[in-house]
């Protein structure tokens, strides 16, 4: 590990991306939400002035993109003000929202504030499933919002998190994005962190489902070429090499959690590592000097098989959080890699879940209920009334 200090200062590149998680409050309760399970513990949200300072400091270092996310960023009444300040500082401003809490007047105010882009997430393409997965009635409203976003000439990204409950609707989902004139479509396979990890048995698709979905996605990619860019990534549980997580730890991504914790990735809060808080230190100090951000920079921290592997500069050994969740040690190789001694355990787990899925469809065996993402369940998790994850 590289110790914190001046010696790393000059060769650390600046962040390009600032992800501002404004709040963990959210009117929806998606069971695949990637927020931490401990959302109930994040009480003290940063003030408007704190956020303005964070944005100024990160911009000065070189961050060019800012994403306002959450939870549901629309919950913050100062969102317009923050967008305006971000745009004024020269950021490309992205709003990542469920659309719940938005109306035409607000879209117009965002436009006046200089917002560049809106991404709306849908849970599914039919009303019943969408509302079930989101835990609220929002489907018609979201569609209406998507139309308004287009009417105001925003580039529109529609994001649909894909999992076993909606993967067989993929054609309908894509039809819906065509109807709504999306400029970009992200069919984002669930990543199994946070809430989706405790619901993985009910959410992980089968290999057969993925193969079928891929054919449909390809068909639409060809059909919509030039009109809409469709991105479809399969869950990394089905790969042999890990993703180059965050393009490297502390390389380009900076996340600020609602309480001001600075993180190299929005999942990293679960690691047994101390991260700085922007209430105590400047963004520059947090990024360049904190032990947390330097923890997995470079290659010195790596263990075998990564350490001597010639692919380490390509994937940086994968995701630290996944290594931690599955092996108990964040410095281990991501078990998605087939060189990892834990890879077989991952394959076994995928098989086990495939059997559960088959039981469900063939024999109508009731699956265990989904744990919805809400403050009540979070409090139970914090109090250990609901089991978190197996390491």
């Amino acid at each position, binding site marked *: 590990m590289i110790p914190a200090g001046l010696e790393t200062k000059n060769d650390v590149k*600046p962040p*390009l991306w600032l992800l501002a998680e404004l709040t963990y409050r959210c009117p929806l309760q998606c069971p695949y939400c990637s927020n931490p399970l401990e959302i109930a513990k994040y009480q003290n949200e940063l003030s408007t002035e704190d956020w303005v300072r964070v944005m100024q400091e990160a911009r000065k*270092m*070189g961050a*060019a*993109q800012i*994403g306002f996310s959450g939870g549901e960023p629309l919950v913050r009444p100062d969102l317009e003000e923050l967008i305006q300040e971000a745009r004024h500082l*020269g950021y*490309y401003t*992205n709003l990542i929202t469920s659309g719940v809490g938005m109306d035409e007047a607000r879209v117009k105010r965002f436009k006046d504030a200089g917002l*560049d*882009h809106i*991404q709306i997430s849908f849970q599914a393409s039919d009303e019943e499933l969408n509302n079930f997965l989101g835990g609220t009635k929002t489907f018609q409203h979201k569609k209406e919002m998507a139309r308004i976003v287009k009417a105001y*000439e*925003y*580039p529109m*990204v529609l994001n649909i998190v894909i999992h076993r409950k909606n993967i067989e609707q993929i054609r309908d989902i894509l039809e819906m994005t065509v109807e709504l004139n999306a*400029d*970009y479509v992200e069919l984002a396979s669930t990543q199994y962190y946070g809430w989706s990890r405790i619901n993985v048995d009910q959410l992980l698709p089968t290999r057969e489902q993925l193969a079928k979905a891929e054919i449909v996605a390809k068909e639409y990619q060809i059909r919509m070429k030039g009109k809409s860019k469709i991105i479809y990534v399969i869950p990394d549980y089905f790969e042999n090499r890990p993703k180059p997580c965050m393009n490297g730890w502390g390389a380009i991504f900076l996340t600020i959690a609602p309480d001001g914790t600075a993180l190299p990735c929005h999942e990293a809060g679960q690691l047994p590592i101390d991260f700085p808080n922007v209430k105590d230190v400047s963004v520059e100090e947090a990024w360049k000097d904190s032990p947390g951000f330097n923890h997995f920079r470079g290659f010195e921290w790596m263990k075998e098989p990564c350490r001597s592997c010639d692919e380490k500069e390509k994937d940086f050994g994968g995701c630290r959080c996944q290594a931690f969740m599955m092996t108990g040690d964040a410095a281990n190789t991501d078990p998605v890699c087939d060189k990892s001694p834990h890879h077989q355990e991952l394959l076994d787990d995928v098989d086990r879940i495939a059997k559960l899925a088959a039981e469900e469809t063939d024999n109508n065996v009731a699956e265990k209920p989904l744990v919805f993402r809400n403050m009540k369940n979070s409090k139970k998790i914090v109090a250990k009334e609901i089991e978190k994850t197996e390491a």
Partner: protein
Amino acid sequence: MSITKADKPEIAPTFRFQWEEVQDCYVVLYPEGMVKLSKSAGEIMKRIDGEESIDKIIKDLETTFSENNLEDDVMKFLEVAYDTGWIRNKK
């Protein structure tokens, strides 16, 4: 599409073109992404404002950099820029 020198391109509203001090270059920004432009590409994009015709842009570049025959290079870049949707003809 075929480009003519009388066309007056503008930056498409779904993209943003700006100077980035820390990167020391012009960039094109779009949802969750950024492309760094080469010096010559930046010089071309800088002149695209929906008012000037391509013909005028070429002439201006040739005068500014005291060079002749920039037309081919500029046209080649503009083709790419139209193709990726960064620029469009003013409606």
